[in-house]
């Protein structure tokens, strides 16, 4: 602790750099949020002026960054003790907790007001709900209390396509709820695959992740259950007119691979092979979600280009 304080003192004496505040915003999470929000915007019926669309995406990105900063502020005590999070700006002493809190709060208020005033208040309200849900429901309430933390908290990560959709249409509809549900159902198997091989980290800091509380085998069983719910759900856009043939094929093929990897995790319980299976599922789950949304985006863009060509021709 002494060395840590010494290092903290040396670092804090020069003050935080701009890049430390950027790191507080979790840029990698932000990029996924922007991507899913963009898909929501493009998939939505109607038209939004490109300037307003850009503003909406920027506000959603900044709102996601605010959530990241507020999460790092609140979780600084446990972040210090986990390998995955020990290098974050607060545990390293690069940014103080108060600076992170102020930064996050200012960004949260600014992003919500900007989206609400300049685009529409349904989108602004959903962004406020997302930030509030991630901060108060997930980070402050559920994360340290129940193994269902990421199941319910996953809703925060599922809102962005809904916000994008609302930015264009000014409302919520079945299609945007389906996009929400896909990410919502994807989150548990995705995070529990990570938790399977990082469970000692969570155990050390007392976060009741499912593998810590219910054991590894129960976690593997839950991964399979949620995967069985996710895969058919991820195919529904094709049945409600949101996705086309390319989406139907992609969601079916990748869904089959997802299930195969989930069952492999379930059946591989011992040693390094078990960790490897969990890592493979975790890695594939990211690709799976990205690919589904990318195909949806590609189809919609192709539709619009075809429509545009028809008008010009």
């Amino acid at each position: 602790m002494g060395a840590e304080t010494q290092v903290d003192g040396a670092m804090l004496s020069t003050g935080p750099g701009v890049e430390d505040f950027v790191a507080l915003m979790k840029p990698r999470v932000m990029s996924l949020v922007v991507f899913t929000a963009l898909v929501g915007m493009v998939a939505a019926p109607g038209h939004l002026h490109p300037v307003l669309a850009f503003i909406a995406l920027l506000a959603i990105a900044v709102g996601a960054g605010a959530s990241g900063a507020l999460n790092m502020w609140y979780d600084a005590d446990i972040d210090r003790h986990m390998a995955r999070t020990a290098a974050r700006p607060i545990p390293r002493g690069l940014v103080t907790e108060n600076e992170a809190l102020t930064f996050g709060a200012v960004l949260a208020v600014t992003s919500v007001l900007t989206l609400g005033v300049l685009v529409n208040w349904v989108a602004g309200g959903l962004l406020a709900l997302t930030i509030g849900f991630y901060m108060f429901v997930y980070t402050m309430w559920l994360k340290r209390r129940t193994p269902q933390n990421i199941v319910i908290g996953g809703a925060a990560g599922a809102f962005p396509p809904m916000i994008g959709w609302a930015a264009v249409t000014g409302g919520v509809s079945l299609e945007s709820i389906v996009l929400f549900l896909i990410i919502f159902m994807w989150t548990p198997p995705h995070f529990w695959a990570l938790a399977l091989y990082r469970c000692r980290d969570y155990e050390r800091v007392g976060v009741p992740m499912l593998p810590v509380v219910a054991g590894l085998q129960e976690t593997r069983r839950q991964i399979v259950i949620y995967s069985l719910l996710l895969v058919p759900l991820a195919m529904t856009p094709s049945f409600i007119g949101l996705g086309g043939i390319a989406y139907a094929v992609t969601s079916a093929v990748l869904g089959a691979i997802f299930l195969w990897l989930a069952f492999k995790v379930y059946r591989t319980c011992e040693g390094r092979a078990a960790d490897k299976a969990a890592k493979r599922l975790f890695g594939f789950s990211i690709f799976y979600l990205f690919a589904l949304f990318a195909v949806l985006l590609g189809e919609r863009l192709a539709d619009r280009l075809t429509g545009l060509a028809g008008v010009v021709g």
Partner: protein
Amino acid sequence: MGATEQMSEEQAEAERQKRQRLRSIAIAVGLGVLVVLFYAATIVHLGGNALNRPF
């Protein structure tokens, strides 16, 4: 990390001032972007009506 710990007081002060300046510039750029976005969005909302006025 070691290098930072070995910094002399003058070096640390110079580094502190440099970071302070960069933070100030970043805040200024952020506020500038916000002003431009609000201006642009206002023009978009007004649309063609912005030019539709009696002379």
